[in-house]
C-alpha cells in the first residue's frame, strides 16, 4: 500500500543534511537550508528532487536560474511550474527586476543563509503528465570553489551535490573562447569532486545527468553552432573527463544578454557591466534535457 511521503519524514528534519531542528527554526542549524522546504515537502506526496546549478564565481548562475524559473512560470517550452512557498519566487523576482532595469543582480554571498532556494513543482504540458518536485539552490561560486578545494568546508554543498539527481554545470564560454584555461580547470575540479562523491558510493561511472552549459555564449556565437565541438576544441580536459567518467553528459550553449556595455567611473577604477538588452537563447533546453533523463 502506498504511503504518503509526508508520513516518512519529520517536519523538523532538514531535507539536505538530515539534522533535527527546533520546530520554529527558519533555517537548518547545521546547513542553513530553509526549513520551509521541509514544511512544503511534507504537504506533498512525493520526495522533492534536487537539481543543482553549479559553476565558478561570476559565471551567471543566479541570472540563469532566475530566468529559467521565470520562463517556466510563463510556460516556456513544454513545461509549466508552480512555486512552493513565497521564498521560491525571491530569486526570479530579484533577477528579473534587476535585469529589467539593466543591472545584474547582486553577488551571491558565500554565507549559505543568504542563498536563494527555489522549490518548484514542474511538469510537461501534456495530458497525464506527472508533477516533479524540484529544489534548486543558488549557491555562491566561491563556496563551491572552496568546497571543491577542501571537501566538507561547506557541508551543505557536499550534501546537496551528493543528493542531486541532476547537475547544471555552467562554464564561461567567453573566457574559454579567449583562450583562458580557467573554465576548463574549474570544470575538471568540479567534475572530479562529483566523481569523488560517487566513488564513495562505490560507483565506477557516474550516472547523474550533467548538462554542461556554455554561458555568455553571446560573446562567441560559434558555441551555438555546435556546443559539443566547442568544448572539445576549447576545453579538452573537461571533454576527456566527461567521456571517461560520466554516463550522461550533454553540452549546451546559453546566453541571456543581447548586448553588454560598460560604465567606467571617472577615476577609471570601477567598471560596471551593463546588460543593455536581453536576448534569451538556450535557457530552457538544458533543463528540458535534465528532466527528460531517466
Amino acid at each position, binding site marked *: 500500500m502506498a504511503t504518503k511521503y509526508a508520513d516518512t519524514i519529520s517536519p523538523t528534519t532538514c531535507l539536505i543534511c538530515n539534522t533535527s531542528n527546533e520546530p520554529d527554526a527558519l533555517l537548518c542549524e547545521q546547513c542553513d537550508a530553509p526549513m520551509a522546504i521541509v514544511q512544503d515537502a511534507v504537504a506533498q506526496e512525493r520526495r522533492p*528532487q534536487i537539481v543543482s546549478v553549479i559553476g565558478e564565481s561570476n559565471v551567471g548562475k543566479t541570472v540563469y536560474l532566475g530566468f529559467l524559473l521565470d520562463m517556466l512560470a510563463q510556460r516556456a517550452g513544454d513545461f509549466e511550474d508552480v512555486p512552493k512557498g513565497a521564498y521560491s519566487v525571491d530569486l526570479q523576482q530579484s533577477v528579473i527586476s534587476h535585469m529589467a532595469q539593466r543591472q545584474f543582480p547582486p553577488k551571491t554571498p558565500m554565507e549559505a543563509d543568504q542563498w536563494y532556494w527555489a522549490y518548484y513543482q514542474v511538469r510537461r504540458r501534456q495530458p497525464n503528465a506527472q508533477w516533479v518536485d524540484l529544489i534548486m539552490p543558488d549557491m555562491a561560486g566561491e563556496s563551491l570553489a572552496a568546497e571543491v578545494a577542501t571537501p566538507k568546508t561547506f557541508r551543505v554543498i557536499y550534501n546537496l551535490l551528493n543528493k542531486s539527481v541532476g547537475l547544471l554545470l555552467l562554464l564561461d564560454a567567453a573566457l574559454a573562447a579567449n583562450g583562458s584555461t580557467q573554465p576548463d580547470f574549474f570544470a575538471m575540479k568540479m567534475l572530479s569532486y562529483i566523481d569523488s562523491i560517487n566513488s564513495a558510493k562505490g560507483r565506477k561511472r557516474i550516472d547523474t545527468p550533467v548538462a554542461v552549459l556554455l554561458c555568455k555564449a553571446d560573446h562567441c556565437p560559434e558555441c551555438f553552432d555546435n556546443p559539443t565541438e566547442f568544448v572539445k576544441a576549447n576545453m579538452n580536459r573537461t571533454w576527456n573527463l566527461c567521456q571517461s567518467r560520466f554516463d550522461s553528459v550533454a553540452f549546451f550553449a546559453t546566453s541571456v544578454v543581447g*548586448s553588454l556595455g560598460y560604465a567606467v567611473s571617472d577615476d577609471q577604477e570601477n567598471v560596471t557591466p551593463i546588460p543593455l538588452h536581453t536576448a534569451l537563447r538556450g535557457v530552457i533546453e538544458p533543463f528540458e534535457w535534465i528532466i527528460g533523463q531517466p
Partner: protein
Amino acid sequence: MLQLFMKKSPTKYDPPPRRRPPPIVQAAYVPAEATQLFADPLQRCLQLERFGYLLANRRKWKDHPDCHNVCTTAREQLDEMFAIVPEGFVSLPQVISDAPGCEEVTIETEPFLLARHPITNAKYQKFVDAGGYQQLELWPKEIWPHLIDFKDATDYHGPRHWQHGRHCKPQSDHPVVGVCFYEAAAYARWAGFRLPTEAEWQMAATWRIRSVANVLRRYPWGDALDINRCNIWSTGRKQTAPVHEYPDGAAPNQVLQLVGNVWEWTACNFEVSDDEGGTVLSDMRMSSIRGGAFDTYFPMQATGVFRTGLVSLAREHNVGFRCAMDVRKPKK
C-alpha cells in the same frame, strides 16, 4: 520524469553503451537558387531591385531604349516598398536608466520614406550574388580589413547563418539576420537607399506629430502591448517570422514589424551615459538598434522608445535592418 533509483554498478570496468548526446535539431537547409543575372546593366539593376540606385543614376541610361519603362517600374516598386513618415519630433533619453525625468535630447525629424518591411533574405541574396562584398566603394575604408570576416557558416561571403553563399529557401521572406551594421549600410548604399537615423526610426514607430494632442505611442499600433501584433518572446514563436506577417502591428502608414521580429540597425552610434554621468562603452564602437526581436524577453525592451546598442561588427541571429530614403523635395 526523474526517478531516484540506484543503477547496478558494473562488476568490472566495461565501458557501458554511451548515451547518445541530444540531437542538434536543424531544419533542413534548402539553399535558394542562384540568381541568373541579366547581361544588360539597366535590366540587371531592376532585377537586383536597386531601385534607388537606378533612379539616382538614370541619366547614365538616358539613351537606353528601356530607360523610361524601367524607371517607371522602379518608381512603382518604390511606392510599394516605401511609406512616407511625416515630420515630427522625438525625445531620446541620454541616460541608461531611462527613468522618467532623465536627461533627454529632442530632435525634430523631417519627412522621409521608410521601407514597409525589413530587408529579406531574398533581397539580400541579390546583393550577395551581384558581388556586393567585393565592391570596395560600398564599404568604409576602415572596414576593408574586416571584409574577410563577413563570411557565412561555410566561409562564403554572406550573412553569418547562410551556407555556400545561399540563404535557406523556406526563409526567403524572413528578414535577413547575421549581418553587421556595415553590411546593412553597404546593402543600403548599393541599393541606392540608406539606413534610417535613430530619430527617424523612433518617429516612424511612435508617430509623434506636433499637434495639440501631442500623442506619443509606445508601439506603432498604440500604447498597449499586444503579443498578437508583434513577434517577441512572449509571442512564443522562438524564431523570425516572414516580413509580411503581423499586419495588425503596422504603423499608421502600414510600415510593418517595427516592433518585434528582429532588431533593426540604424545609422547612428549608440551613446548614452550611466546615472553618474560616465559614458557607457563597449569593446568597440556601438551602433543603435531598435525595435526588439523574437527573443526579447522584456516587453519594455520591445517598444518604439527603447534605446539600446550593439557592437557595430556584431552579426547576431536577431538583428536585421530596413532601408530609408530622403523625400525628394519638389523643385521651386
